[in-house]
């Protein structure tokens, strides 16, 4: 569903992503894991068409994000790490606007269903600026799911969520994959990656230092009992 091949992104002389390759098949959850500045968010932005790759290709559902951005973007639901929304719209107005922008059939009904699912019905007609951070994050999930995307791309999904919200998001990602969708997420949280990801790409300084299931990563460090934190530290130290 999502395929990244030899992705390079440079800003002047600084290389944010350096030859990254991975793919996320339908029904799978892939986590990009790495420290700050590893290039995770830049990768996500390249996948969602917000930045143009310096080299390499990104395809979503077979559509090149650079050459056929509309077809690729139509398949993606995106949740950024910071839920910036229009503060002077209500939650319902925001979803109505996105429904029109994306030409979603039955958008009103779908919005109602999502507001209910994310427990935002009571706040739906009040301005977004009155929402807490967690509510904005949940509204961003509503916005991402409004058009029933086949690929869900989530940057730091747990930021600002309370434990219950975090659990719901973990279940949501898992369910989306189980229903045939693909999920690509970035996270600092080893626990999140361990709990939901079928596959993990460890990133450091713009490169993938390791890739595989948790079991495969354990084998790679030669310790079947190692938790993800130990694996992460050993492999990123090796790469450094």
């Amino acid at each position, binding site marked *: 569903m999502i395929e990244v091949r030899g992705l390079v992104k440079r800003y002047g002389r600084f290389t944010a992503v350096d030859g990254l390759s991975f793919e996320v098949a339908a029904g799978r959850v892939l986590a990009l894991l790495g420290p700050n500045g590893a290039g995770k968010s830049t990768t996500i*932005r390249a996948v*969602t*068409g*917000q*930045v*143009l790759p310096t080299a390499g290709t990104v395809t979503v559902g077979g559509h090149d994000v650079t050459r056929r*951005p*509309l*077809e*690729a*973007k*139509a398949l*993606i639901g*995106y949740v*950024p790490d*910071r839920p*910036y*929304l*229009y503060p*002077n*719209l*209500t939650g*319902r*107005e925001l979803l*109505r*606007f*996105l*429904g*029109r*922008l*994306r*030409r979603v059939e039955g958008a*009103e009904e779908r919005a*109602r269903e999502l507001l209910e699912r994310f427990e935002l019905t*009571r*706040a*739906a*007609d*009040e*301005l977004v*600026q*009155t*929402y*807490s951070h967690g*509510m904005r994050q949940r509204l961003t999930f509503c*916005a991402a799911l409004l058009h029933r995307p086949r690929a869900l791309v989530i940057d730091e999904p747990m930021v600002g969520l309370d434990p219950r919200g975090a659990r719901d998001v973990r279940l949501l990602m898992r369910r989306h994959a189980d229903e045939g969708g693909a999920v690509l997420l970035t996270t600092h949280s080893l626990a999140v990656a361990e709990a939901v990801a079928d596959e993990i790409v460890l990133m450091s300084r713009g490169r993938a230092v390791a890739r595989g299931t948790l079991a495969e990563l354990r084998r790679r460090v030669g310790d079947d009992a190692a938790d993800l934190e130990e694996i992460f530290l050993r492999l990123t130290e090796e790469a450094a």
Partner: protein
Amino acid sequence: MALVAMRLRGSLNGLRRRPWRTVIGTALLAVVAWGMHALTVRALRFLDGYPDIGTIADAVARRSLEGLLAVLMVAVAFSVLTGAIGTLYGSVDLPFLLSQPVPAYRVFALKVAETYAASAMLPAVFTVPVLVALGGERDAPAAYYPIALLALASLYALPVAVGALLALVLMRLAPAGKAKEFATAASVVVAAGLVFGLRALRPEQLQAMTPDEFERLLQGFAALQLGWLPSSWAADAVWQGLAGRFSAGATLLLALALVVLGGLVVLSSRAYAAGWYRAEGDAPWGGGRRRSSERPPAWERVLGPLGGGLVVKDLRLMLRDPSQWSQLLVLAALAGVYFISTASVSVGIQRFRDVIGAINVAFLGFLLAGVGVRLAFPLVSLEGEAVWLLRTAPVRAWRIVFAKFLGALPPMLALGVGLGAAVAGRLELSPALAVAAPLAGGLAAFATAGLGVGLGAAFPRFDSVNPHEVAVSSGGLLYMALSLAYAALSTLLFAYPTWRSLVGGRNAFSWTAPDGLLVLAALVLLCALFTLVPLLLGSHRLSRWEPSD
């Protein structure tokens, strides 16, 4: 000092990051300063050389300086209101600085200094060259310059303190979370009122004066005493400085400035917490009123599909944001002032009325250029940090830019065509010019809306918090230059029907004759060029825009 050094370092780094912007900005400031200096020298030489008023020339110059200082002092007071709220309450570094083991008064002293610098810098660019020119023309001693600058710095400190105090009060009284927007709206409304007030003085009456009447006016002006105004104290300090003396007025002004600035620092430190929560946000959800319902209103169902929902969304956001809707008041004030000014010209001869009609055609273009910089240019940037919603949607940048154009066009078209038709009707212009006026307004509306939205998309500033800031950029300057170029070129094309009407009489030119159709085609082509090229350029640049962090 460490805080000030840190702030200066940050500003310098910011300038280094955008060298071209810095060069262009500095060049512009230099041009303005040079212009003010040259203007002052010419004005002083004119006064000194004016027959029979040699004895009062000095007093007239002094009153003029007082007037300039008073006007700029008021300008500082209005601009400081929003600036103070933003700096004293909205600075992103404030929570960090206040969490450091540094006394709060030192942090707020820095913030007061920042507010002062931001509000007084531009008026100073206008005033310092005037004071330097005055010193040069009057052969002032070296001591004059520091005295004059100190008097100026002390004078501008007063409105900064008053404006910042008003900001502190507003933070306590304005609806929660709306203080910044209300301050912006209040400033804009008062500024629009001032423009009207100045126009009400009818300065065109000066043209009808005889030399004797003008001399009597100057003598009355020279005798005018407004000693209670701080601008008079400052002017007194400057005049005493010309003789190398540090006057009592200067001492008083300096002492007052230090007291009010010090008081402001203390008060800001104490009033901070109470205002902070109101500045940060609205009442949490559940306490606010419902702003939408499950079924959209009828007007929204009609306009909804327009521009992929962007037009309706932008309209809602504008009506809910005082810093945006207050721009419409400025627009109305400008239109009112323009109409009154043109309509107040009473000329009996048709040919002269047509000349004024032709000038009106040129001025309409300039007026719409000024409106567009506030109304059309910021539209794309107003997406702000929510722009990711558009960038990740399956929507071409062209569709976004065109939707913004559709949003900007109706008010500008109404203004251009409405004013053109109203002025043509009021002046009873010849048929050719009666058509030319609304036509010029309509075409200028298309061109300036296209230029504004297109260049606004090509040079977006998604980090700006209000529409005023967006236009203060290299893109804004380019917009002004190109929209003025459009106004000049279209005036050249309109010169032909004007010339034919003036030379050949009322009905010498017809827009439906071959030459009329040719002029019309050239005008439409010019308008299309200035509308479509910027929109296409803006779409292209917006599609390649990338977030910087």
